[in-house]
């Protein structure tokens, strides 16, 4: 029985989210009909989800370990700017489109590692360290870009790659799928994932069991930074430009998706599947709102209500899970 509940548990816990998503889709079909339920529109929903989605995967790791990263949005902005400076663009013209990608990823990674070092070795609370990074990364991005939007020109291969549609699905959606799958695997099937959950559940016990929690924390924020770098690449592909305003408030969307998905903000339990569902819920919501031509203020209220309902549904399913497993 305990075996069964261990298997059923996560599925049931996801139940509330899946139900919320299904309800949204029903509303979408009812109000938008074919305009909602068309391949084109579904791809639009997924494309919109890609940036938040990728960043949320990294965020899931950080939150599972009991931390938080408020800087991801700003780091997306910084990475997008750095990867679209004239210098980078010239280099990309000379050496290949990958220069842009590598630059964005490297900027994201380094920013993440700085966060990680501050949290792990400087013992600065994660909230503070990443808030400081938020401010600093935005400032730096503005200075680099001179507050101008930097359009990427004459690096056609970059767009050829990232704006293509293998099997009819945009590359950026594939990137989201791959990152999510890799994240799921990393969290659930590897020692790295196990350590992440352990550190979040009880850092002192993990330390005393011989886990190098500082180094691990460093890596975790590195991952969050790296996914922010990937997010920047996706945004560059979508907007053809880098800007210091890219990713504004993205951190809130990402955290909301992760927490609505069922990852504990206190750490110790994380679910990539839940995060993906959370991201899809928010992105479908935006889409359904647009289809219904809803006033943005009403949207905001509806959004608040829907978040609460999704969580209450989850609670209800969790309670049912307990009852059925006895």
């Amino acid at each position, binding site marked *: 029985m305990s075996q069964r509940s261990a298997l059923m548990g996560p599925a049931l816990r996801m139940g509330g989210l899946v139900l919320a998503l299904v309800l949204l889709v029903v509303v979408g079909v009812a109000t938008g009909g074919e305009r909602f339920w068309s391949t084109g529109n579904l791809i639009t929903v997924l494309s919109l989800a890609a940036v938040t989605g990728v960043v949320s995967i990294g965020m899931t790791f950080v939150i599972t370990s009991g931390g938080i990263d408020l800087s991801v949005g700003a780091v997306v902005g910084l990475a997008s700017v750095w990867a679209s400076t004239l210098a980078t663009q010239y280099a990309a013209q000379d050496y290949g489109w990958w220069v842009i990608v590598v630059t964005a990823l490297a900027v994201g990674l380094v920013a993440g590692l700085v966060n990680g070092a501050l949290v792990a070795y400087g013992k600065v609370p994660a909230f503070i360290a990443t808030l400081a990074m938020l401010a600093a990364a935005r400032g730096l991005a503005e200075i680099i870009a001179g507050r101008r939007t*930097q*359009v990427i020109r004459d690096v056609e291969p970059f767009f050829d790659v990232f704006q293509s549609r293998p099997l009819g699905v945009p590359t950026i959606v594939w990137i989201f799928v791959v990152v999510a799958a890799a994240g799921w695997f990393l969290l659930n099937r590897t020692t790295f994932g196990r350590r992440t959950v352990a550190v979040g559940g009880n850092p002192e016990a993990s330390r005393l069991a011989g886990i190098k929690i500082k180094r691990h924390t460093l890596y975790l924020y590195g991952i969050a930074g790296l996914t922010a770098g990937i997010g920047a690449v996706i945004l560059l592909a*979508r907007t053809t430009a880098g*800007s210091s305003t890219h990713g504004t408030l993205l951190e809130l969307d990402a955290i909301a998706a992760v927490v609505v998905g069922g990852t504990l903000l206190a750490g110790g339990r994380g679910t990539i599947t839940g995060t993906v569902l959370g991201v899809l819920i928010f992105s479908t919501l935006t889409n359904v709102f647009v289809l219904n031509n809803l006033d943005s203020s009403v949207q905001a209220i509806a959004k608040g209500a829907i978040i609460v309902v999704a969580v209450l549904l989850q609670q209800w399913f969790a309670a049912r899970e307990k009852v059925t497993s006895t």
Partner: protein
Amino acid sequence: VSNEPRESEDDAATGPVAVTENDEPGDEVVIGFSAPAADHGWMGAITAAARAEAEKYEDVTLQVAEGTNDVNVQISQIEGFIDQGVDAIVLLPFDGAALTDVALEAMEAGIPVINVDREFTSPFAARSTVLGDNYGMGVSAGTYICEQLGDNPDAVVAEIAGIDSLPLTQDRSQGFEDALDDCGLDVDARVAAEFTVESGEEQTANLLSAEPEIDAIWNHDDDQGIGVLAAIENAGRDEFFLVGGAGSKNMMDLIQSGDSVVQATVIYPSTQAADGVKLARLVAQNKTVSDLASIGVPRQVQLYAPVVTADNVEEFLPIGFDS
């Protein structure tokens, strides 16, 4: 109480309308509209005016997407419009460069795009462009201040900018600086608010504290202007004059009454998107702008950024927007 809406929304938003043969009903058209979040008065007026303009034509259905400051979301909105196959798109992008690609996509799909306010980076991305003039706005403000202070090279000029990370703010500041430079003045103190009343108040309070003697202030945005004025009031200062920006009804009233530090404001028309809707309809219906001799809707319309002072405020009051 006098902050009640003085006139109905559409009057306020679009001003006098001449009826031409273009206003005769034509083919039914669906126009997609997308703009940044209506998080302050000017942007609210933009969207309201666009909606009101569409209301006037029974052959127009305006599909309004949620206002957003997230380019990623805005791109998906345009993708949605393309997917739906609307007849035309009016797009006031949060960031012109970032929305260029998706606008091109729409044009390639045969949907004419009317670009409003913040310009795309590709001429092929829009069928027609309605532009405010941010640089010109700064120039107008600077020139006005030069006229007032021209004989005093030591005059202290302060600037209260809007959201500093937006290219349009940079354009305005550049124009301002260039115009001042012409008469030997420069910007002695500059703060950047966020287009909100609260940030206007906060930044101005600090600014006034830092500069004990000021001769003139240019404030980019009349929405934040309410906060700016409150801060001036709180500090009990009046040794300078203030030039506003955008042209809210509020500021025009103050200019008219003449008993405050507000002497002028530079118009930045909040009717741009309404013009965009009008043009979109014409384009979609294959009509032309009737006052022009040429056939077809022009590629670009740049709106004028005049200075409103006590002398001409009467004329502009009808297009002042409620902040």
